[in-house]
């Protein structure tokens, strides 16, 4: 993958560093929206990407202390903002039950927002569905990779359950069934580019944040509980929306292969949500009671960023932004 185009001083500085040009990370502007800023989240996304597939032609800076320090600077701002915005939800969930499953379900009801899936099902144009597929590719082409970092950091039955879930995500021994590969097939069938990271330049800050939170939680052993909470919220809010998205894809006349990815996830995630809630989170908290608050933090952080992203995406579509550019790109 090529380095993305910078969007401001932070991503410009990271871009330069990854090309081994000298420079400093500028201070983060106090006015910046740390949960959605385009520049900040592109900078952070590039730094996290060093731990996944990396960039073509760049030096190996994955464990370079200076580069890690920059990442720490940005991600600690992100984590603080996430904790601040989710604390009241987490406290409320802790107060309403002692049962982890009840607490997770309470959060899923409490942190709610507009449904992107319902819009895609009933109203979206073909171009908007394509836009959605392209923007989502940033995650789905490395589906489950962020949560896999947690596997060596937990033990016993919770580890076995996470491995079981990941084995399913990774195709259960069949490379052609890797969920990331199914998504690539879905993109290709729709006439989109299936190469990893192909659409990063058009992914807005709020959706980069949705991606970055998974790396933040997955890459820190300290945050393993939150990572599993995040996984759970992701799975719990996937099955029913996937059915709607598949219906939207079929409604606008895109190929069956494109809808198939989402049909697969109706069933898969109906399983995964139960496994994640009960066999991973509840069992993990039983083994490590101190992780309870962080599990709920991860749940709330996932849900909150999803709500922000859905609101912003629907607002952008209502304003007529974005779609024309993609339509040109698909046509060319």
């Amino acid at each position: 993958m090529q380095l993305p185009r910078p969007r401001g001083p932070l991503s410009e500085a990271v871009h330069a560093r990854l090309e081994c040009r000298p420079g400093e990370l500028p201070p983060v502007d106090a006015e910046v929206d740390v949960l959605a800023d385009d520049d900040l989240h592109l900078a952070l996304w590039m730094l996290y990407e060093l731990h996944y597939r990396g960039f073509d032609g760049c030096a190996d800076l994955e464990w370079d202390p200076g580069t890690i320090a920059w990442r720490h600077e940005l991600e600690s701002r992100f984590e603080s903002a996430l904790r601040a915005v989710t604390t009241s939800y987490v406290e409320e969930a802790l107060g309403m039950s002692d049962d982890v499953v009840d607490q997770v379900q309470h959060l899923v009801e409490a942190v709610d927002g507009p449904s992107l899936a319902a819009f895609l099902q009933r109203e979206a144009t073909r171009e908007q569905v394509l836009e959605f597929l392209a923007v989502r590719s940033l995650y789905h082409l490395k589906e489950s990779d962020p949560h896999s970092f947690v596997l060596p950091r937990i033990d016993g039955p919770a580890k076995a359950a996470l491995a079981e879930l990941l084995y399913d995500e990774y195709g259960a021994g069949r490379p052609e069934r890797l969920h990331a590969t199914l998504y690539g097939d879905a993109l290709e069938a729709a006439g989109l580019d299936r190469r990893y990271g192909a659409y990063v330049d058009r992914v807005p800050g709020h959706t980069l944040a949705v991606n970055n939170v998974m790396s933040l939680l997955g890459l820190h052993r300290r945050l393993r509980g939150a990572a599993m909470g995040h996984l759970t919220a992701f799975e719990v809010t996937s099955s029913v929306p996937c059915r709607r998205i598949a219906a939207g894809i079929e409604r606008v006349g895109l190929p069956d292969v494109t809808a198939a990815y989402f049909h697969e996830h109706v069933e898969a995630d109906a399983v995964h949500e139960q496994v994640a809630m009960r066999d991973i989170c509840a069992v993990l908290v039983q083994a490590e009671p101190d992780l309870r608050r962080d599990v709920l933090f991860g749940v709330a952080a996932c849900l909150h960023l999803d709500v922000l992203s859905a609101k912003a995406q629907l607002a952008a579509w209502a304003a007529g932004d974005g779609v024309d550019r993609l339509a040109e790109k698909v046509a060319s």
Partner: protein
Amino acid sequence: MTDSWRALSLRDEEVRLTPCPGGPTLVRRADVVVDEDGTAHPVDRPVVAVCTCGKSQRKPWCDSTHKSVRRR
């Protein structure tokens, strides 16, 4: 409704059933789930969720429809 299906192992493994309150039953180590009509459905995941509310559109598999059944 809930007891009309069977999960079978063809390898003499002990099938493990985990009922989820208000939701499906998780089935592990099964090769086949036989539904209420006697039709056999191959199991191709390490763990599957079998519908117990009767409302799934993908029976015998859960499709999370129980959430709307329970709430509304």
